[in-house]
């Protein structure tokens, strides 16, 4: 009874199913009509969330905020969530996640605050966007927000890790600012502290917000000992954490050592890149869900390595012509055995028969 009701709920009417059927292409191809509509307005789309850049603001050295006006396909977001920003860079689509650095607003605008990374194609291109340009977005994702609505809150952030905290604080303010919150935010220099002014403004309007801005150049590295000194009652607080890898590991260790792991929620900026080591004799290759691992010897193709581990990936010519063995690399660096070109560390398509790893690699086999 229940299951059939649930099924009915997701049932698409036969008329709609017919209208969406691929046999009717290109009449029903949203992409074809989007292309036509984009002559009038590139932000219009029948299916794709897109947004127009309305303002670009420099926040700190190497940090830029983009104010975006999304089209009607964007379903909105909650404070603390992130979106995929999908850009065409020299003809290729590249997408990366960025945290929304504002709470949902009445005018529907979004703000993404982006820190430039070396060799980060998306962050570099995003910072060069001009007002008026149109970008593709994903729907908002993530559930980085306080779980327990009554407990006292501690937010710890470093560098651009402050972005979800600003969003969450603005949201708390809109909800009446009843909670007691401490924000501990650190940056290398005073100039590097993103949103320092905006946070001061918030503190004026939120009497229960205690702000602690920590400048490492002046006050030394923020470590477990210092955190405990600054926030005396840290063990009693629900904690939200966001920042660079090393910083987050330090705080995670601190909480784990105190047995308070469940008080802590962390938000990481994507995957931790595996170190590149061309001289290593072998590299670990992980794949699948649940994750399995095999090793590839230096100079050995990933196809041969997978086969000697007993796997049977599809293959054709075994010399880089036919692409039957093409597979998505989730992370890690590989060298193309034909051209000697070294790949980037992120997600891309590779041909297993002519790729050899230079670091630990994760594949979507």
């Amino acid at each position: 009874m229940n299951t059939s009701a649930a099924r009915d709920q997701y049932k698409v009417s036969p008329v709609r199913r017919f209208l969406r059927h691929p046999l009717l292409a290109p009449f029903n191809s949203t992409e074809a009509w989007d292309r036509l509509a984009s002559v009038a307005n590139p932000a219009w789309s029948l299916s794709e969330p897109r947004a127009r850049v309305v303002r670009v603001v420099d926040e700190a050295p190497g940090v830029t905020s983009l104010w975006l006006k999304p089209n009607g396909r964007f379903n909105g977001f909650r404070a603390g969530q992130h979106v995929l920003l999908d850009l065409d860079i020299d003809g290729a689509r590249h997408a990366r996640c960025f945290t929304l650095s504002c709470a949902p607003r009445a005018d529907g605008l979004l703000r993404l605050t982006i820190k430039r990374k070396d060799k980060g194609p998306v962050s570099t291109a995003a910072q060069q966007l001009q007002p008026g340009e149109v970008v593709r977005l994903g729907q908002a994702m993530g559930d980085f927000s306080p779980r327990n609505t009554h407990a006292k809150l501690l937010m710890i952030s470093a560098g651009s890790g402050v972005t979800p905290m600003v969003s969450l604080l603005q949201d708390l303010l809109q909800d009446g600012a009843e909670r007691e919150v401490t924000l501990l935010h650190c940056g290398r220099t005073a100039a590097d502290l993103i949103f320092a002014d905006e946070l001061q403004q918030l503190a004026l309007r939120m009497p229960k917000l205690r702000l602690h801005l920590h400048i490492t150049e002046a006050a030394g590295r923020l470590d477990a000992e210092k955190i405990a000194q600054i926030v005396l009652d840290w063990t009693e607080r629900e904690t939200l954490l966001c920042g660079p890898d090393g910083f987050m590991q330090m705080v995670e260790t601190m909480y784990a050592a105190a047995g308070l792991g469940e008080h802590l929620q962390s938000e990481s900026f994507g995957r931790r890149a595996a170190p590149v080591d061309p001289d290593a004799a072998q590299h670990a290759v992980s794949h699948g869900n649940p994750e399995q691992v095999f090793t590839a010897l230096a100079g050995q193709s990933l196809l041969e390595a997978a086969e000697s581990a007993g796997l049977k990936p599809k293959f054709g010519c075994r010399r880089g012509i036919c692409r039957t063995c093409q597979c998505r690399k989730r992370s890690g660096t590989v060298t193309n055995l034909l051209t000697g070109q070294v790949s980037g560390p992120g997600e891309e398509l590779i041909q297993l028969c002519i790729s050899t790893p230079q670091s630990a690699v994760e594949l979507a086999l």
Partner: protein
Amino acid sequence: MSSKTMSKTRLDADSLARFEAELDALRLEVLEDIGERDARHIQRMRSIVQGSAIAGRGLLMFGIGPISWVAGVVGLALAKIMENMEIGHNVMHGQYDWMNDAALNSQTYEWDIVCDGDHWRHSHNVEHHDHTNVIGKDHDFGYGMLRLSEQQRWSPSCLLQPVWYLLLAMNFQWGVAVHDIKIGRFVKGRMKKAEFRERMRPFLRKAGRQLFKDYVLFPALAFWQWPRVLLGNLLANLIRNLWTNAIIFCGHFTENAQTYTTREVENETRGQWYLRQIHGSSNLEGSRFFHLLTGHLSHQIEHHLFPDLPAPRYAEMAPRVRDICARYGVHYNTGGFWKQYAGVLVRLVRHAFPNRVRVAVA
């Protein structure tokens, strides 16, 4: 005769290595330059295909009078030709995989033709491009029904091959579609029934969909106008079949295109592979629009050397490939469409008859 007038160039190990290095360097140079220009090209091709398919099918379904019917047929034939050749074939080679666009991914793309995409990826990308013109391994050579080389055995049924050829050309999409099923092997008892059934399944599914789409669904959507849609679709498919067949046959079966035995290609180096691709392919000369209509298969030599570079690059690379070939004394087979196609027909007729001179096969 082909194998006598134009023999295969043999390069000594040293020049072969330099020849290979020069072509590798050219490939790398173009690979580095690939970017926005190529992305714009394929997107523009998609707009043309989508636009002419909508216009063509629309005119066939809702147009009035013979002029709109002819325009509809032309629009749909153009859409099918461009989709199959400039988009489908090239995308499935992985020429645009670098764009990271799910709609242009070589491993998932499906085209508007009765041939199943996965079958094509195997018979074309693996067998034909790796084993180009190797008799017995490259099943594109003669499509299992035509005798185009002295190395193939003659039988009396070959005498009728001009007729077989005409039938193949008119139904070319079906020839391509059954290609990877290897029906011949099943008929000769070299394939188990279960495997044969497994190989038939994707073909039947795809062919059923295409037939339903072109001859049931779209005619039915036009209500009382169904006859003009049905006939128009039939004619558009026929035009596409004849055109693609002519272009593809000009690519490998011209008078001077060389064939190989499996023994010849054992342990071949990349340089020898390059050489075989050049010897086994031939180019067509023509305008930019002509090249687009052929999906740039008019640059068959460059395509076979660099199958995964975006096709419009072939036209830019051709003079340099030609120059490299000239310097190493490698014959570069090129000519106008009619000259090359006449060569194909001559070859087809000549090999309908048994060999005049016995050739000692190594």
